[in-house]
């Protein structure tokens, strides 16, 4: 067992990419700083993956600041509404400022009762999209676009939906990466800045300072996690080989999906009791009181798709409504160019790889990435015909599943312990990579449901 000095943690990816990363990264950050006048912590953390960061910022910039159907203050208010569903005060604060800067009416910040009925109408779809997107039907869309005083035009609605999905997903990322509020001097507009999770952003952003509590904790832990890593790699290799000869029957495949779906039920519910100290919940409560003015029905939360089986909601067949074929065309038709930006972002995150796993190089991580992506979709009831959900079970250990489920479904409950407890051998940048995957998968899932409803409304 090699001793863990800082140097050895500067492993493969950092060492290899560093030469141009640092340069690229600083350039990038400087650029971002000069356009937006700030460097938020999200950007800093994401800058571990500059390629991705670029397309992320481009699409975010486009939907917030470039030509679009919605007025600028509306966009920020929608972002606030979306972030409020997850009590993400970090994002809320950020956009409260932006909202005021773009000429928003300060009164609206007093809560939903103060905004125009039109915005208020968006609340329902915000709620569903955030927690149970499968419930969105064409009736919801019809209600919004039905001609009347407060109706939404389809382009406006699509813009709003894109914003909502983006900020729900971003909230996942914020909590999942434990992003701290910026220490801004201006604690104006009466928002207390509460650090939700107590792991410092610098740790993540620098990645060399990986003196991680769980790692340094005990030697036993290291050995344990190392063997975990080896086991994972072993399983990946086996899966790759096996795939050729062992073919599961169709029934088997669909049972596996169902099983995965069902299992996701217990993943968190069992865990919440143990892993949540009371203080965490209290923290949540405090925030709730602050942000709940932007939402109605705060108790509405994620409910397991599998559990809904009783009402027999049909599984969303991914092949019947794909982003590439259907979602893109619709979104781009109604809100031009956003399709291309989102498309690029999805592709980017799906294909992003450094061919490393912790200390190992030249690993094909396709399988792992696909498992993460599809597992998120699985929890939202989206099934890929051509995917063997048995792989999820093999590749994603329980603690990771707990983490995934928490981050995508109840991001506000994420704790540092969860973050630490999976893949202990992996670098922070890799965990951030995981978070990016989760975030984009979630965004795509929400968009697919919303866009499908809009398509149904149109036909």
């Amino acid at each position: 067992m090699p001793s863990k000095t800082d140097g050895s943690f500067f492993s493969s990816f950092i060492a290899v990419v560093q030469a141009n990363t640092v340069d690229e990264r600083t350039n990038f950050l400087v650029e971002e700083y000069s356009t937006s006048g700030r460097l938020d912590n999200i950007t800093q953390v994401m800058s571990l993956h500059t390629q991705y960061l670029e397309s992320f910022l481009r699409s975010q910039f486009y939907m917030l600041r470039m030509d679009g159907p919605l007025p600028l203050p509306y966009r920020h208010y929608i972002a606030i509404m979306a972030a409020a569903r997850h009590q993400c005060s970090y994002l809320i604060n950020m956009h409260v400022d932006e909202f005021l800067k773009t000429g928003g009416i300060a009164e609206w910040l007093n809560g939903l009762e103060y905004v125009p009925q039109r915005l208020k109408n968006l609340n329902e779809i915000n709620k569903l999209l955030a927690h149970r997107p499968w419930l969105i039907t064409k009736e919801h869309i019809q209600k919004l676009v039905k001609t009347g005083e407060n109706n939404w035009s389809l382009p406006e609605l699509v813009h709003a939906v894109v914003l909502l999905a983006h900020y729900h997903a971003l909230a996942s990322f914020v909590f999942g990466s434990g992003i701290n509020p910026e220490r801004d001097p201006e604690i104006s507009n009466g928002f207390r800045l509460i650090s939700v999770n107590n792991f410092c952003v610098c740790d993540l952003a620098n990645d060399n300072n990986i003196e991680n509590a769980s790692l340094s904790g005990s030697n036993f832990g290291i050995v344990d996690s190392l063997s975990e890593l080896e086991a994972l790699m072993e399983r990946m290799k086996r899966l790759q080989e096996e795939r050729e000869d062992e073919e599961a029957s169709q029934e088997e495949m669909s049972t596996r999906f169902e099983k995965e779906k069902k299992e996701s039920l217990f993943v968190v519910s069992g865990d919440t009791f143990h892993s949540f100290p009371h203080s965490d919940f209290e923290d949540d409560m405090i925030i709730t009181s602050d942000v709940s003015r932007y939402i109605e029905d705060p108790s509405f939360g994620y409910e397991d798709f599998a559990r809904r089986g009783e009402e027999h909601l049909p599984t969303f067949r991914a092949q019947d409504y794909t982003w590439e074929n259907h979602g893109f065309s619709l979104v781009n038709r109604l809100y031009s160019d956003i399709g291309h930006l989102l498309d690029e972002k999805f592709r980017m995150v799906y294909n992003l790889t450094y061919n490393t796993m912790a200390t190992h190089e030249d690993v094909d991580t396709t399988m792992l990435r696909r498992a993460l992506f599809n597992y998120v979709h699985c929890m939202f009831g989206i099934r890929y015909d051509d995917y063997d959900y048995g792989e999820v079970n093999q590749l994603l250990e329980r603690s990771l599943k707990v983490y995934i489920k928490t981050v995508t479904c109840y991001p506000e409950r994420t704790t540092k312990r969860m973050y630490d407890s999976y893949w202990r051998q992996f670098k922070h940048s890799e965990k951030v990579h995981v978070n990016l995957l989760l975030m984009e998968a979630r965004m795509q899932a929400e968009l697919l449901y919303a866009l499908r409803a809009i398509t149904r409304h149109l036909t």
Partner: protein
Amino acid sequence: MGKTRTTSAEGRERQRLPARRFRTTSPAALRADSVDGGSLLAPLLGLTDRAFSDCPDLADGAMEKMSRVTTALGGSVLTGRTMHCHLDAPANAISVCRDAAQVVVAGRSIFKIYAIEEEQFVEKLNLRVGRKPSLNLSCADVVWHQMDENLLATAATNGVVVTWNLGRPSRNKQDQLFTEHKRTVNKVCFHPTEAHVLLSGSQDGFMKCFDLRRKDSVSTFSGEATEAGPWEWAMAGWVPVLPVLSCHILRLHHSFAHGPTQDAESTANGSRESWGCPLYPLGLCSGPQAGQSESVRDVQFSIRDYFTFASTFENGNVQLWDIRRPDRCERMFTAHNGPVFCCDWHPEDRGWLATGGRDKMVKVWDVTTHRAKEMHCVQTIASVARVKWRPECRHHLATCSMMVDHNIYVWDVRRPFVPAAMFEEHRDVTTGIAWRHPHDPSFLLSGSKDSSLCQHLFRDASQPVERANPEGLCYGLFGDLAFAAKESLVAAESGRKPYAGDRRHPIFFKRKLDPAEPFAGLASSALSVFETEPGGGGMRWFVDTAERYALAGRPLAELCDHNAKVARELGRNQVAQTWTMLRIIYCSPGLVPTANLNHSVGKGGSCGLPLMNSFNLKDMAPGLGSETRLDRSKGDARSDTVLLDSSATLITNEDNEETEGSDVPADYLLGDVEGEEDELYLLDPEHAHPEDPECVLPQEAFPLRHEIVDTPPGPEHLQDKADSPHVSGSEADVASLAPVDSSFSLLSVSHALYDSRLPPDFFGVLVRDMLHFYAEQGDVQMAVSVLIVLGERVRKDIDEQTQEHWYTSYIDLLQRFRLWNVSNEVVKLSTSRAVSCLNQASTTLHVNCSHCKRPMSSRGWVCDRCHRCASMCAVCHHVVKGLFVWCQGCSHGGHLQHIMKWLEGSSHCPAGCGHLCEYS
């Protein structure tokens, strides 16, 4: 393009050639392959045209059948009507049997064969059997073999390729199962002439070629493979399929089934082991990079080139492959922006490939040339899901869309803007289209997500061309008018010279027509251009007015006066008059002190009484109306009631007041009132009555006095309403602006008096009507200008949408005349949200570094690359971060203030370059 069309008979002949050769030359091989099927053999024989030349009667039977089909085509016996039938589930794809009498429909939960009868579709066979429907039956694509009526293949969403043999005696017709693809298979395609060759393209980025006589794929093509050089392409790819080469074909046929070392006999022995070493090792391209290669969306064997197939990809590329060379594609080009969903080889023109993509385009490529050449491009309104060349019509193709648009279009590629035909039967997106017979252009079959299967008859199609308006009309920037109309119409009228295309843009005049086209008659139109006479008025007044009008920044009265003056100078008296009236209506309170100071402070007391008497509107109105009618009953009917009414009231005031001593010619005002309408007395009582309670007399009398004394003008309730930003700021100025010429003061006096009775609100309706009048007359400039100048005073009377409409039309006009500054000012001053956000869009200004000429992406003043400050002030030598002004002559410049100051004192450039700079 110039080639003559091959006749259908020739086409068929050529198409069938290889197969026929195959049959006659290689009976052994054929018998061999039937070993695989064993029991299948018997049922197959009677049904297919697999001729066994050593079984004469069978062969005869097949030949006979074939000739029947041939005659069927030649005599076009296909009959039927436009019809549809309901399916149980949405269809994903359809395919037609080669006998043109059956169609297979496949979808996630449907897989059925329908017989196409004269009047209806009849379900013939349900291929979805078994207790529990498996995902293998969830079809993304289906294809029926064009040589073998019993052979079908489907692509399943879970990545399985299934073949079906209808000749199987059991209920389950499933034949083989290939589970080699890891992701959804998007497309399957049979070789057009080979019985056993099947090609599939999948989401995992691989294409696989299967020989149906064995269990695994023969070769795998990876979307990532590199391109072969053009030379190799020329050598290897385009081997023409000629009768002489039939032996060669036969050998190659085997080669890609078994590798070159195998011969037919060893296959007959069924020695599978010997296939272990095919020419190109399997899995050459598979391996770790799986998943990174681009997804394959479509694969199509070339109809005319035996070894060639095309594949299209999610990243917009199209690749051409030689089936014998799986290591790399022969050629690759980027066809679309975004995924290419489909492609189709032209049935007759070798090397014509049509592709359709998510970018809503259909492109026709000629791939026979050195570089793939785009020959035609059709722009559709939605992403293109399928494209199919229409048989027997060289330039026609049918398309359907993936999203939103449910119709099927048939395009003439030379006419890319209007579809030649349109089928509108479906209620949801069309997912599969197929021409019923490869030589009959009039029957099209389609399947849709709305769970229906349709047969469309070309003669029943709607033809958008017929509905298209062949007339067009457009104004040019300089007032020219271009007019296109059907030729017949124009020819009938003499005296108009057709536009010959001269000093201005040579617009095409007449399309050259292809008499072969069915719509030739509809395509002809003539274009006439009417030019404005040079200097003949035109829109000069518009430009002048727009430039000279003042819209804000001064008190209302001044704005009105200024604008009235502008209008008068341009000879637009009516407009000038309107401005004057507006001033009178809305500005008098502010000017009252002035007036009274100038003229009759003492008079103020005395004027109270007569006013009280005279301004009972109820009494007044009829009298006023009749009076005016009597006096001026004829006129030019030019002015509208607003003018009339306000000025008439005014006149009455004057009459009552007898304000002599003013040099305003009374008839100046009266002059404009000429042209009364009977409307007058219709209008007056109507408006007077409801307004009446607002003109409470006692209340008004006192404030009038106060006004006279105090500078702060107007009764409070009026002032509040009349408060518009630019006016309110300038109330203080009013006093200092007192020395206006006496005509104004007169007007003010009379108006002040009358105003004390009639608040500007009273005129709201009239002003609104006036604005509408102008806007309807086409002078939206006036409407918008008044709207801006009066601001809050009238805005509430006009509904938001109308305002927005006016604003946008005016801005559009201004921009056509390139009056950017004015247009921007209007945008800025507008209160309509939709309008005012116009200039918040696209506000980025890109700056290039003056040293290295590269764009400065991050900051506008420091270049990232050469690390220099790009814009230094020539005066103070500091970096300019805000407004930078520079001389266009010597390109030196600096802070606006500094340069201005410098140039006040010197005419030379501050940088010392010696240039005589000018600041204007």
